Structures are given as structure tokens and as C-alpha cells.
């Protein structure tokens, strides 16, 4: 691979790479605002100016103060070039930390902050703002301008999700380029020039496509802020753990930003993964974090006739074991979940087979939603392929379960997850189980949903943010996510809760830790068949 020298260090590059991209691949950051690895080159912020000393060196004539002669004499200085636009060439000598380059970064930084309101205390970007970072690394000087800065509109509502502050904006056009190139919805543009320059929405339109929150994410300063995250938390209190989006079968990689003091998730951010989501996520995916805290099931529920009473988690587990223990072998139906991790589904399927001799498996999940060609998969479940992989005999659609219940071949159901692609009346046969009548429907869930309402016994389990696990996306890629926050009230992941129920019934599979489950799981997941990858009809 050809190389060039950056500040004396050899940097390999692929043909067509710019200086900044080759350095970025090596984990070296050349200060920049407008350049983004996933967007086109604009070269308008001038922050990444570097000095090139090889080849034909360009020079600018200047007057330089001569201390001895006490006068200005004609001299030259190297002409700096933007690293984001300059193609890397073999044996190039580039300097990003030379005296001239550092001076250029300092003056660019001072220029960008000239009319900045410096309202960091009320700005949500504070703590992850490039203006703050580069002020500290490149400028570190007080403002020299003494006059009132130019004022521009603040708090402009761009759409249902985004608020714009023109005073903080540095006109890097990242948001415009994102809408044009990735979201394919050219709704943003720039108006006016110079001091009065600002970003504007197309007349008659709102910023309301499926990727609006990404404009906030690519904004290097606090000009675009998300309505949802505004004023909720300070980013320096948040810790990030790697997650996988639960919104659809694409399985976008995420950072789950949570506050460890309150054990609460505040937002999801895309985690760069060239193979899956590159640098992006959709709005609905970024909002899936709300499910970690809304409609949570944190206690067990027992239905007796028409009355539902809340019980402790332990009592719910006891009730589930008692209800399932009396069912004749082969009469237990198992509903695996496309919303739960492969670990949860594997333990459920194995327990049902070994303990109840179950042969009937059904797959539950959310109904199909609106996909697109960018990221969103039409299957709204993150782990359909993973759930099908643990049921080698195949899993039937949930609608077949109703028929099996009517025929009397099934008298008890154990189901995972809250969601089903059926409505309430279609789930009625499930809801009739247990309670005062015969049989039982045990539902393990972290949140309330159609299956939870139809259950006679609800056992609370940890949500995706509260447990580690694996999702297999539509392409058949198994991706692991890590626990971010601790579940309230000693609630355990579904697989551990199932092992607890199993223990009460004398089932000892030797699955005490997540590692045990992962090593017991089928190693090579079968390649996803067309059927598995396809969204439900």
C-alpha cells in the first residue's frame, strides 16, 4: 500500500483517499468541522488546512517584520491546503502540526467564534462540541472582538424533531449534505451570505423525513438540537455502552447513552459500522430507547377470572412453575420472540423441549412497518433470524396457535416478549387460557403489549438495555450488545428467569452465566433462508 508522511509519520492510503481520510483510518484526527467520513467534501470550514512541503511548493508573497532592520521586508510563506480535499500521493510530505498549520487552525477557530454567542450553559452540545474541543487544543485565547456580536434567529423550529439556532451555526453544511446525499430529501439549504448566513428549510416544507435526528448528530456544534433530548441531561454525565437497535431487522449499531446515577437511558446514537449502518440511524430507531422506560413491566401479574393482581417477581416465578408443572407432556406450546435476544430464545426453546417435551413452536413479533432503501428494513423485529435459528424444526405463525388451542392439542402456552402481529380478538383463545379456567399462558416480558394483556401469568424480565445478548439481523449477521443499565427490583434477563423457573421444576441445564448460554448455543448459525429474512406477509 502506498504511503505518505504526515508530521513525519508514515500513513498508508488507498488510491483516491484524501489526506484527512487516510489519517482518519489510522485514528489520527486532523482538526475539521465540515468534513464527515460519510458525506461529500465541502472544504468550507478551513479548519483542516495543512502544509505540503513536497512536490511543487506553493508560496504566498508576504511582508515580514525584520527585527534587525526594523522594517517589513518581502518574504514568502507556504500556501496551506485543505486536507479534506487534497488527494494523498505517494511520498507526499504533509504537516498538520507545523507552525504555519497551527497558526491557521488558531485563526480559523478565532474567526468561527467571532460572532458565536458562547451560550454553552444553555446549549445541549456543551461537552461534545467541536468548538469547545478545538478552542482548547488550537486557540486557548480570549476573544479580541469587543463589539456586540451579530445576532441571528434562535430557537427556530425546523420540524417535529429539530430546533435550529443560527447564532451557534458555523455553516459547515453537513446537515444540508446529509439531507441531500443520505436521506435523499433535499429539504435544507443555506440563505444570505457572510454574517447573515443561515440554514433554512425549503419554503412550504418541514424537516420531517425519517432521518431528521441524524442532522443533529452530524452537526459539529450546537446549532441543531433534538427536541427530544433538549435540556434532559448534560452529556458529560452520560456513559455509553455498545448496543444494537431494536427498531427493525437492519440491526443498526448504537451507543446507548445512559446516566449511571439514575440508571436511565437518555438517547441512542449510531455506532459506526461499515457493514451495517455506516454512520447513520433512522429517527424511529433512535427513539426506541423510550421503550426501555415506558410501559415497563416491573412486577409480576396474575389473572384470576377477570381480575389482574400485581405480585412480586418471585411469586410470579412460583406461580409460573406451578402452572406449567401440571401440564401433560407435549401439550405446551412455545412462542419464541423476534424481539428478544438469541440467548433468551435459545434457553426458552431448550427448556420447553427438555422439560415439557414441546414440539410446537410459534414466532411472535411486531407487525411489518414502513421500510426504505436507506436503512429501514420492512421487518420491525431485530432478531427474527436469531429466533428461527433456535427452532430447527421451524416456527409457525402465531395465527396457527389459535387453531391448535381450539383443537385442544395445546393446553398451556409459554410466550416471550410483549408483541404479536395479531389484534386482540385474534389473541382471544390465548387470553382464555388460565385464570379461573383450565391451562395457563405464561408471558415473560419487559414491557406491556398484546401478549402481556392476553397472559394469565406475567413474569417481568430485563429489557434490551438491561441485559447483554445477541441479535441476528436480516443479512444473517450476529451482533452482540452489552448491558447498559441495571434492571429495577432484581429483575433478571429472560434466559436467567427461565432457568429459575426450570430449577423449581427440577431442570438443571448448567446455565448459570451468559457465557454458559453462549457456549451451549449452536455455534454456526444457519445461513438465513429467503423466508427467514423476508418480512412477514
Amino acid at each position: 500500500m502506498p504511503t505518505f508522511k504526515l508530521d513525519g509519520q508514515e500513513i498508508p492510503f488507498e488510491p483516491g483517499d484524501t489526506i484527512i481520510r487516510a489519517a482518519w483510518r489510522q485514528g489520527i484526527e486532523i482538526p475539521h468541522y465540515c468534513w464527515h467520513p460519510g458525506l461529500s467534501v465541502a472544504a468550507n470550514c478551513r479548519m483542516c488546512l495543512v502544509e505540503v512541503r513536497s512536490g511543487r511548493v506553493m508560496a504566498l508573497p508576504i511582508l515580514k517584520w525584520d527585527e534587525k532592520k526594523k522594517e517589513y521586508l518581502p518574504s514568502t510563506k507556504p500556501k496551506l491546503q485543505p486536507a479534506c480535499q487534497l488527494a494523498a500521493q505517494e511520498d507526499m510530505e504533509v504537516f498538520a502540526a507545523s507552525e504555519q498549520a497551527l497558526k491557521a487552525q488558531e485563526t480559523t477557530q478565532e474567526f468561527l467564534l467571532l460572532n458565536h454567542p458562547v451560550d454553552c450553559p444553555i446549549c445541549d452540545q456543551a461537552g461534545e462540541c467541536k468548538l469547545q474541543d478545538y478552542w482548547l487544543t488550537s486557540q486557548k485565547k480570549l476573544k479580541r472582538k469587543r463589539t456586540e456580536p451579530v445576532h441571528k434567529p434562535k430557537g427556530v423550529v425546523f420540524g417535529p424533531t429539530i430546533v435550529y439556532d443560527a447564532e451557534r451555526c458555523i455553516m459547515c453544511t453537513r446537515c444540508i449534505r446529509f439531507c441531500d446525499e443520505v436521506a435523499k430529501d433535499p429539504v435544507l439549504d443555506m440563505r444570505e451570505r457572510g454574517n447573515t448566513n443561515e440554514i433554512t428549510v425549503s419554503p412550504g416544507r418541514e424537516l420531517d423525513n425519517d432521518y431528521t435526528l441524524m442532522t443533529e448528530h452530524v452537526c459539529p456544534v450546537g446549532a441543531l438540537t433534538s427536541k427530544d433530548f433538549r435540556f434532559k441531561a448534560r452529556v458529560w454525565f452520560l456513559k455509553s455502552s455498545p448496543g444494537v437497535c431494536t427498531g427493525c431487522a437492519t440491526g443498526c449499531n448504537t451507543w446507548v447513552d445512559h446516566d449511571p446515577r439514575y440508571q436511565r437511558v437518555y438517547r441512542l446514537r449510531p455506532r459506526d459500522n461499515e457493514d451495517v449502518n455506516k454512520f447513520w440511524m433512522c429517527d424511529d430507531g433512535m427513539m426506541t430507547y423510550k421503550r426501555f422506560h415506558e410501559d415497563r413491566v416491573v412486577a409480576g401479574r396474575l389473572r384470576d377470572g377477570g381480575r389482574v393482581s400485581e405480585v412480586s417477581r418471585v411469586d410470579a416465578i412460583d406461580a409460573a412453575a406451578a402452572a406449567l408443572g401440571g401440564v401433560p407432556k407435549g401439550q405446551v406450546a412455545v412462542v419464541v420472540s423476534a424481539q428478544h435476544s438469541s440467548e433468551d430464545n435459545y434457553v426458552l426453546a431448550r427448556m420447553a423441549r427438555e422439560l415439557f417435551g414441546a414440539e410446537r413452536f410459534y414466532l411472535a413479533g411486531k407487525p411489518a412497518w414502513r421500510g426504505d432503501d436507506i436503512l429501514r428494513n420492512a421487518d420491525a423485529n431485530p432478531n427474527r433470524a436469531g429466533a428461527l435459528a433456535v427452532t430447527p424444526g421451524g416456527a409457525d405463525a402465531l395465527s396457527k396457535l389459535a387453531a391448535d388451542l381450539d383443537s385442544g392439542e395445546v393446553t398451556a402456552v409459554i410466550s416471550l416478549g410483549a408483541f404479536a402481529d395479531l389484534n386482540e380478538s385474534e389473541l382471544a383463545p390465548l387470553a382464555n387460557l388460565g385464570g379461573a379456567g383450565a391451562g395457563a399462558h405464561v408471558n415473560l416480558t419487559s414491557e406491556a403489549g398484546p401478549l402481556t394483556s392476553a397472559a394469565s401469568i406475567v413474569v417481568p424480565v430485563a429489557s434490551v438495555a438491561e441485559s447483554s445478548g445477541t441479535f441476528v439481523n436480516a443479512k444473517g449477521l450476529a451482533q452482540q450488545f452489552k448491558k447498559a443499565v441495571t434492571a429495577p427490583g432484581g429483575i433478571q434477563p429472560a434466559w436467567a428467569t427461565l432457568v429459575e423457573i426450570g430449577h423449581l421444576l427440577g431442570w438443571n441445564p448448567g446455565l448459570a452465566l451468559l457465557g454458559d448460554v453462549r457456549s451451549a448455543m449452536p455455534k454456526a448459525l444457519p445461513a438465513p433462508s429467503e423466508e427467514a429474512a423476508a418480512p412477514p406477509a
Partner: protein
Amino acid sequence: MAYKIHKPARTLSDQAYFPEVAKGLAITVRRFFKNTFSKEENKVIATVQYPDEVRDYPERFRGVHRLTHRTDGSPRCVACLCCSTACPAQCIYIEPAEYEPDDARYGFERFPKVFVIDELRCIFCGYCVEACPCDAIRMDTGVHVPASHERAHFIFDKETLMSIPGKDGSYVTQNPRHEPGDPSHPGVTREAGHH
């Protein structure tokens, strides 16, 4: 290395004990008569009859916190959480909120919906005052936290903190604030801006 401590050599009168005792008692007796029988302005009492009489704390004494007001009586605080970040005792809890839609500050400014200081946990280091970018929290009240038998009495909420005046009796500070709409704050809209 061990330090050598030089003790002053004792004179013969120190050594004899009684002359020094007599000298000391002489001072005591002199002060007694001076403070009992002389005119008020000549008295040299160093003691203060606490709690009937309270001596002023020094100018820069770090007393109980107060939240300063704007001219309209709302808190200057914008709930940036800089104070609670700087606090080494972690005694400040803030919940930010947004102004109502009809407020001029709606859309970009925030205020503390909840602002609580646990004065028992506070170590009165003054870092919160140093950290505050808006001059919203001050310790210039000149009083210490009043004593109580109840722990709950030391949990000062926003209303309590805003009800404590500064040493000069005012609820505002000398540093001016430019509110949106003021002549000193050219505005938040393109029309109100000067271009």
C-alpha cells in the same frame, strides 16, 4: 529529616514561677477594674455575648448559598449543571425545564424546575460559585446555615434558596444581565437584529 525546635531560654524569673504568676494576675486585675469602672469607650472586652450579640463575618466569608434573581423575580440560573458538576460533595441536584411557549425565553433558554442543595453534605468550598457562568449562585449571604434538630431542614429547595438575600439585602447581583428584548440585547429574531 527531623526538625530541631529551638525553645527560648528560661530566665531566672521564669524559673522562679511566682514573679510571672504575679505579672499575669496583675494584667487580669487591671483589665477587671478597667472594664468594670471606666467609661464605655475605654473598655477592652474581647468577648462577644453570643447569641445576643453576633459579630459580622469577614467580607469574603462563604455563607449559606442563595440563588440570585433577575429583575422580573425569576431565577438567573439556567440549569446548566456546571455547579453540580464542580461540586466535590455532590450536594446539588437540579432538574432543568423549558419556559412556557409565551415566554420570550422559550425555545432556547432553560430554567431549574428543581434546585436542591443538601446543606449538611455541602463542604462550603465555593466551587459552585466559581463554576457558575451566570452569577446565579452566590455565597455572599454573610450567614451560616441555621442549626436544627431535623435533617430535612437542611435540604434547601429552590424557593428557600431564592428567599435568602445577599449581605447587602438585595436579591439581584451587581453584574448586569441582557434579557431578550432589552435594548442591550438586540434580539432573537432577524427583524430585531441590527443588520
